[in-house]
């Protein structure tokens, strides 16, 4: 009976290591602080009614950004721990805190880089992107809301459930998987990983993966069906185009991930043999499946960011984007090609020259549309009038890092070269160049660019530029040594090495780079604090702080909860640019239909979280409660007809007039 209720969860499994206790302590302190603060300012009800149960994509977007930023700090801490271990943990070094070398045991080190990878990809980069897409895409297409507002709330809360679930081992015990971020079989099978780490990984990603999938469906439908009148596909802003492509990718690949993890679950829970060593299991199948999802997944991270750069370059060069059609063809080509390159992650499995060469050539083709995009952006600036604000700095930072990273990538697309650098730190440096220098820089650029739209005031320019330079310097100082180390034969994921190899100096340089990056993140936090304190000097009263071109600038900053009092009509590719030229038109208000807030997303995700956690610990009773809870909530929501309300034209007029007075 106890087995049925608590499963594998016993007193012994509760946390007792310094890092789990420390993590639990930190979480408890933060939660307690927030709780005390909310009680003192009496904002509990406000938080629940205005934020947690909201179906407004702008608020959901902000919540995505907050959670993603918290996870960014946690994943960053992991990164610093990895760097520290590698710079002090040579095989002759004394061990601290009970480790043989350095201060982390091999298993603990492996858990940390696994956590770093999973958190940075699934919960940071994806979270930031979903946040920005939520905030901006509805505004850019002139829509008042998403196609399925409730599903958007549910998607966010499932993502949040995944975030909590993957960090639950701090509180409830167990460990993180020590398998690498993709939990490759057969290492992730019971034979080699009997603990709960891989199970946490499976259920956290299953829960948040469902959230990502419904988010993807929501945005594909929204972009295809909810555009303002006159906005044909070929008049959509580039960020909307890129988001559409990214979301199409999400919808096509996340089922592969869900299915792959389901097969692994069958192996681990029911003793089946899909990927085991014995009884006909085939681990190579897992590698193919996970990379069929995994390669397009990294393009999900970068494709929307290409759109951000297109917007920024065009706005700050004060010029129409050059080669609009070309850019769309390029993004589309990358989307399609991303499906046909997965095998380049394991040329070294020995599939043979024909297979390797095919996937190598497909990979190289991706270099064409990527290069075309960069050249088109430069032609957009050519004969423009570039205003050097922080976002443009991030763009130039991106050009300098991304081209280097791209060259490294094309080198690895050659099977003979890949044989010599596969799985080394060269590879690690390559994909960090792409994801940090490409995706993360773009997210920072987009965040700075759209911040005044979302919050109503600009970020401090000076500290922003300091943060940019510190990031760029820190990036090169920490990752160039990794390229060199990789060619010296230093492989990834190693917690210790012989000091006679002469690698320690470069690892130390790399650690210093990590310190510089920490300073840069500190500066970004400082920038946020200073900007909030000086918000009255940097208010954006016009709704158009950058002399923008697309529809998100046509409404006030921050936009009213219904986005647009009057849905704009679109006659060209840069609708707001045209509107500004033509001047204002008389406004006629109308009734607006809006979705009601609902806590159902929280309830369903809560039960999904309970189900996942119970499955991790084999606590079948709670798993059943979780499933039944999910089904009941979904049924309740399905039969709830009262999900919308009408804001009358008179009310809209009242709000608009009040706003106009505030900005006058």
């Amino acid at each position: 009976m106890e087995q049925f209720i608590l499963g594998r969860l016993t007193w012994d499994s509760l946390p007792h290591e310094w890092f789990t206790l420390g993590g639990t302590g930190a979480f408890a302190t933060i939660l307690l602080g927030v709780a005390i603060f909310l009680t003192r300012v009496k904002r509990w009800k406000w938080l629940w009614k205005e934020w947690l149960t909201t179906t407004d994509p702008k608020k959901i977007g902000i919540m995505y950004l907050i959670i993603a930023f918290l996870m960014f700090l946690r994943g960053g801490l992991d990164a610093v721990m990895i760097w520290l271990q590698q710079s002090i943990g040579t095989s002759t070094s004394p061990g601290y805190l009970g480790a043989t070398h350095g201060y982390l045991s091999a298993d603990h080190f492996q858990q940390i880089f696994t956590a770093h990878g999973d958190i940075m990809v699934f919960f940071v980069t994806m979270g930031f992107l979903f946040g920005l897409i939520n905030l901006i895409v509805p505004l850019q297409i002139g829509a008042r809301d998403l196609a399925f507002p409730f599903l958007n709330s549910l998607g966010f809360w499932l993502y949040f459930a995944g975030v909590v679930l993957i960090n639950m081992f701090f509180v409830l015990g167990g460990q993180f998987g020590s398998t690498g971020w993709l939990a490759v079989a057969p290492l992730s099978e019971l034979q080699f990983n009997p603990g709960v780490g891989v199970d946490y990984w499976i259920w956290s990603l299953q829960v948040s993966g469902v959230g990502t999938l419904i988010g993807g469906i929501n945005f594909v439908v929204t972009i295809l069906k909810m555009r303002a009148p006159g906005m044909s596909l070929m008049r959509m802003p580039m960020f909307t185009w890129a988001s559409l492509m990214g979301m199409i990718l999400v919808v096509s690949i996340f089922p592969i991930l869900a299915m792959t993890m389901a097969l692994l679950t069958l192996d681990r829970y029911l003793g089946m043999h899909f990927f085991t060593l014995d009884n006909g299991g085939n681990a190579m199948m897992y590698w193919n499946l996970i990379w069929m999802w995994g390669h397009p997944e990294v393009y999900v991270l970068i494709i929307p960011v290409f759109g951000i750069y297109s917007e920024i370059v065009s706005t700050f060069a004060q010029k129409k984007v050059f080669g609009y059609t070309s850019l769309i063809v390029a993004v589309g080509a990358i989307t399609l090609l991303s499906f046909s390159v997965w095998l380049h992650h394991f040329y070294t499995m020995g599939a043979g020259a024909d297979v390797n060469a095919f996937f190598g050539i497909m990979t190289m083709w991706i270099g064409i549309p990527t290069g075309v995009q960069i050249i088109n952006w430069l032609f957009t600036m050519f004969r423009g009038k570039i205003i050097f604000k922080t976002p443009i700095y991030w763009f130039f930072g991106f050009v300098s890092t991304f081209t280097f990273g791209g060259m490294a990538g094309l080198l690895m697309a050659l099977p003979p070269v890949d044989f010599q650098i596969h799985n080394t730190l060269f590879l690690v440096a390559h994909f960090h160049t792409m994801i940090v220098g490409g995706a993360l820089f773009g997210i920072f650029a987009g965040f700075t660019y759209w911040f005044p739209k979302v919050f109503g005031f600009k970020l401090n320019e000076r500290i922003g530029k300091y943060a940019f330079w510190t990031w760029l310097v820190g990036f090169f100082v920490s990752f160039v040594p990794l390229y060199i180390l990789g060619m010296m034969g230093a492989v990834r994921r190693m917690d210790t090495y012989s000091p006679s190899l002469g690698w320690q100096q470069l690892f130390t340089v790399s650690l210093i780079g990590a310190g510089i990056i920490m300073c840069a993140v500190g500066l970004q936090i400082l920038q946020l604090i200073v900007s909030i304190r000086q918000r009255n000097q940097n208010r954006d009263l016009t709704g158009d702080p950058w002399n923008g071109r697309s529809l998100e600038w046509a409404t006030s900053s921050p936009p009213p909860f219904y986005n647009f009092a009057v849905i704009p009509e679109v006659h060209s590719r840069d609708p707001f640019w045209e509107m500004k030229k033509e001047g204002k038109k008389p406004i006629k208000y109308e009734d607006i239909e809006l979705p009601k807030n609902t806590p159902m997303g929280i309830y369903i995700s809560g039960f999904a979280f309970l189900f996942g956690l119970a499955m991790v610990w084999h606590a079948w009773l709670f798993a059943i409660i979780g499933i039944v809870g999910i089904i009941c909530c979904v049924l309740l929501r399905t039969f709830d007809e009262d999900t919308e309300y009408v804001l009358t034209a008179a009310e809209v007029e009242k709000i608009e007039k009040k706003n106009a007075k505030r900005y006058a």
Partner: protein
Amino acid sequence: MKTLSKGIIVIFIFIDVILFGKILLAGKNIQVLNPKGIIALQERDVAFVALFLMLLIIIPVFIWAFYVGTTYHEGNKWAKYTPEWDHSTKLQIFIWAFPISIICLLCVLNWVTAHKLDPSVAIASTNKPITIQVVATRWKWVFIYPQQKIATVNLVEFPENTPVHFELSASDTPMNSFWIPQLGGQIYAMSGMSTQTHLMADSVGSYRGENTEINGAGYAEMTFTAQSVTQNDFNNWVTSVKQSSNPVLNLDTFNKLAQPSQDNPVTYYSSTQDNLFTTIVTKYLAPGKGMEGM
């Protein structure tokens, strides 16, 4: 741009040039760029050719980016400003054709070298090749010499200028990757599977070998030494290993050896059971079924 920013960019380029110079000119520490075998040498040269081809497009783009960034900014009153100019068919043809032409060259390079340097291709040489069977276990490398009927752990010795045909598999371990950076590219060693690669050392020397694919707690220390010696020394070495004081490697002793252990010392086995490697590769198959059934 302000002078400060320009200064920082110049410093940056300077640092980059120095770093890359350091990579290209550095001593033997950078193993991949300092090959000791024909395969590693050819693999490095493929990288150099590809790098050269890519620089043909990267350098102009960088100069172009620098020119655009420093010319067409707000402060420059003399620069031309055409806010409505957003299309030129001629330019678009050029923008696509330029990368396509370079990538096509790279694709040819890819196809040709992927076939020429595929690990299954034997190395042409006047010397008779030697076969060595490699079994990855947790966490050590077992080398079986089927012709000499000896075996070693964490040390592999072979004659110089002689093609070595490695046959690889693993026993009760997740995936592993076998790599001797100075001799040539890596290949996976997988339980229940057999892969192969061909390597050859140019001269006498001792090279570092390692595992690059995570396979559990002992992963980082799963290294071995690859020793290339003269033919005479090799023959003497084989004779000395064969002396009776070294243990015998049969299925029993192998299964004991294959138990997880870290930091294994170099060990020699004076003789091996026939077909030990095949037995290890096929041990996961149900009795009575051949590889064809998979």
